[in-house]
């Protein structure tokens, strides 16, 4: 069920957390921005992939990020997850700026992602794939693991396995746990990616075209999964080409075109927005 919507904030800047001095609030109220993107700009050589893009992701919502090919959606993901450091602008997560943090540090802060073209660890089993994600918050290092002396090692291994199994169950592929990721059917690989991301215990889950290449039945069950994730407290940022899917599941939508934000609002508003219609002209629904 979509929750009641508030109007989108008009100004990009909110007084919530100016810089690193602000205390991190572990659980902001629902509706409060979890991630704030302010004037995000990314340039590769002469190409401007993102041009002063600003939007917020509020806690507990599913935000759709849509736009034609090359609009800068995945680049936006890359900026949030630290793959491509922004040329200018700031990204604030729970009020603290991500700055130039390393990718793994950002993950530990609570942002996890999946990939447009599936990128699992192909030679590891499904369970191991998820365990790598679950290890994100663990601290056992080489000395502890060699001698198996520290109680922490055993505790962490137990927790890790439990979390991993739970996440596999969550996405519904428990029976695949001991199979090699490379050999899983396509739809299960997509699910496994979500499970691996969930295992890092994120507050914000970024899904990059999770339904790409799926058939209608798979899409429907994926929608169900995404909704249930939102309902259990995850905040979700979703990229997809498929307008039907995006319209059906998101609470709010941000539209990018040529690296600029051209619209933001409720799905119904976006559908009516002339700029969006123009951007998508010639790109019929579901053609991706």
């Amino acid at each position, binding site marked *: 069920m979509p929750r009641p919507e508030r109007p989108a904030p008009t100004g990009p800047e909110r007084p919530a957390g100016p810089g690193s001095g602000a205390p991190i609030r572990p659980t902001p109220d629902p509706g409060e921005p979890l991630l704030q993107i302010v004037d995000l700009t990314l340039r590769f050589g002469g190409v401007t992939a993102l041009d002063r893009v600003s939007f917020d992701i509020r806690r507990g919502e599913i935000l759709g990020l849509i736009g034609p090919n090359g609009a800068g959606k995945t680049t936006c993901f890359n900026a949030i997850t630290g793959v491509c450091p922004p040329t200018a602008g700031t990204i604030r997560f729970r009020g603290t700026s991500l700055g130039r943090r390393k990718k793994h540090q950002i993950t*530990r802060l609570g942002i996890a992602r999946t990939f447009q073209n599936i*990128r699992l*660890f192909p*030679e*590891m089993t499904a369970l191991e794939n998820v365990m790598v994600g679950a290890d994100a918050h663990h601290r*056992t290092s080489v000395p502890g693991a*060699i001698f198996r002396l520290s109680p922490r090692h055993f505790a962490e291994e137990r927790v890790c396995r439990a979390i991993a199994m739970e996440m596999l169950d969550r996405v519904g592929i428990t029976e695949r746990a001991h199979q090699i990721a490379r050999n899983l059917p396509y739809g299960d690989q997509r699910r496994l990616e979500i499970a691996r991301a969930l295992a890092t215990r994120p507050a914000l889950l970024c899904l990059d075209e999770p339904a790409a290449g799926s058939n209608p039945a798979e899409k429907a069950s994926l929608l169900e999964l995404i909704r249930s994730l939102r309902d259990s407290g995850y905040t979700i940022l979703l990229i997809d080409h498929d307008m039907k899917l995006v319209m059906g599941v998101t609470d709010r939508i941000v539209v990018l075109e040529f690296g600029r934000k051209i619209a933001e609002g409720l799905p119904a508003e976006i559908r009516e927005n002339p700029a969006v219609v123009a951007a998508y002209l010639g790109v019929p629904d579901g053609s991706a």
Partner: protein
Amino acid sequence: MTGFVDRLRLADEQRAAFAAWPRRWWAGLPRPVRLGALVAFAAFLVALPILQPPVLTTTGTDFTGVLFTVGVYCLCALGLNIVVGLAGLLDLGYIGFFAVGAYSVAVFGSPQSKLATEYPWLVCIPIAIAISMVSGAILGGPTLRLRGDYLAIVTLGFGEIVRLTAVNSEVLGAAAGIPEVPRPPGERADGTRLFTIVDVTPFYWLVLALIFLVVLAGANLERSRVGRAWVAIREDEDVAQLMGVPTFRFKLWAFAMGAAVGGLSGALFASRQTFINPESFPVQTSLMFLAAVVIGGAGNKFGVVLGAVIVAYLPERLRSIDDGLLVVWYVSLVLGLATYLLLRRRGPRDGPRTYLRLGVVAGILAALPPLLLAMPEVFGSRGEIGQLRYLMFGLALIVMSVFRPQGLIPSRRRAIELEDRAKEVEPGATS
């Protein structure tokens, strides 16, 4: 069309079943039987220098000495396996760490060294391990951010740097080397030293024990967060980092661990030799270590050990080969190849060309024995045949790579992959 797909599927299933059966057979045995077999095998290994089994024993060189060398290679292969097999970092300068370990023991322990600290062996070994680890970290620090292939060349350079530094610095004994490297303590019942130059057997046992320990430690690492992180880095470094793995730190750890094991083996080597000089550490040896890892099956401890045995033992055995044995080797080679060809997966490419190619291979095989038998005539004396051993070894490397790229004992993951395939094929084949 469907007939073709079915045939392909069937062939795949057969291959998967064939590849998986030794593992399944072993896992299917009752636990006491497995345990008993392992103990018996361990006892056999321990008793090797005393048994001196007829076919295995090298005739030209001291068999126990060869066993010790093989043991040292096993240690190195296990250490390198952490770096290459698990973490996927291509290290071509492993001999560098080996040399660092050897020189540490020599410099700190030998009365002849310029430092003349003359620490006892038991103190020297931890020092050697520590220094190797630190050198691994020093090399890894600036270079592990580089992409794989650059890492390969930089590490290769490192191996050479270590050797050349030894040649050029007086503290390390320069080209002359350092004699009187300390030996492990311990006495026999009659009061004479246990570890001597003459009798290598205690050294061999020491190495066996250390191999056991390293295998154990490696297994622990593999089954932990660290092992998962390493494999994740090997599979896809960017994604590993995005999933919260501090990749640089774990790569550095992999390097340091590999270096520590390499240093330990070097230290043992130096103690056994009692004399080391830069000649003992040619960079090419790194490639032999790497060959051991890849031939055996990168990522699999036991495979790697088997690879080390092949790489270290075969050339020594070939050094003193006689006609009778040559025939044995040759027949087993042909039989192995024939078995492979009979059981191999039949692909869609099979056609007249394939058979032509097989014919060529068979022709070469048939032509080899007379050539080999003619060798003594060419070289005048029988002893020269030993010089062919690196040639044969090189050929073996190529043949191995071509026919079994995954290694003799592939890693567990690959085995699972094959079993998975078999499972998936079953319902399809019955329907």
